[in-house]
């Protein structure tokens, strides 16, 4: 026994139920002709993404070139920068107030950036 049958059994004596069910039974037999509906829906679907075959190999090649360039140039550069930094900082005695002001500037910059980001969001 379907749910419909069960409901029908419960409400056999109810004139409103009979009217509702007669109406729905009549409509159930009525097929709404497509008349171009499917074609309209298909035209509304988002366009399929065309597969771009050349994109992936090209990107891989570019990454390869970039990584090779970095591998060649970076070690001497990093060494030079590090050597200069050590020379600069080691040769100059730092006072506690210098470090404190550096931390204060860094903190202020961080908080300002956070506040700006929060405000924009």
């Amino acid at each position, binding site marked *: 026994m379907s*749910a419909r049958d069960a409901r029908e059994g419960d409400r056999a004596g109810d004139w*409103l139920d009979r009217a509702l069910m*007669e*109406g*729905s039974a009549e409509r159930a037999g009525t097929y*709404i002709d497509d008349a171009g509906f499917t074609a309209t829906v298909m035209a509304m*679907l988002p366009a399929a993404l065309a597969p771009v075959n050349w994109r992936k190999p090209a990107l891989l090649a570019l990454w390869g070139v970039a990584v090779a360039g970095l591998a060649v140039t970076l070690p001497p550069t990093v060494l030079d920068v590090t050597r200069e930094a050590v020379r600069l900082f080691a040769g100059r005695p730092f006072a506690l107030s210098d470090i404190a002001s550096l931390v204060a500037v860094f903190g202020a910059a961080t908080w300002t950036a956070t506040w700006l980001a929060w405000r924009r969001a």
Partner: protein
Amino acid sequence: MARARDDTVTDAQLIARCVASDDRHAFAELVRRHQSAVRACLRRLTAGNHALADDLAQDTFVLAWRNLKSFRQEARFSTWLYRIATNCWLGHARKRRERPRCDGDADLADVDSDDADSGGEHTPDATRSASLRIDLERAMRVLSEAERAAIVQCYDNDLSHEEAAYVLGMPVGTVKTHILRAKRKLKVALASWAPEGEGGLA
């Protein structure tokens, strides 16, 4: 009424083809199979506004295409479509804060002519029940959106209370409450149709 349907392929197979290989022919077949039921459901929900119903039906199928991957086959495909269609209609009604129209003469003219055509022979009983159905269409407009949706799902789409609850996204108890309230309102609106002795309200 040309219905070219390939019934040898099930809905599940067509869905699988859509998901696996973006098969638009398979989806077109799904639309052809279910367009009549979805449009009929929306015509009832929009109280006979055929143009709006067709627009919402188009949105329904486009949304179905976009979300086909998330369809887990826990309900029938048609039930899933009813769910999307009902959500489209509720969203539209919410946007426009559309109250049931009382001046839908054009739509009622459609209803009138449909009923007049479908009658065939006009015995007094047939005329009476056709008139009752027209008044019922009118009375449906006094229902709230949720009540109308519950009546349409349970009577027109022949869904069980559990399936209607899935379509409407509400607990089964709430669906039953909406149906009871809707029937009470309909009985008040159609009191003149109540057989003698029943007095309209049960």
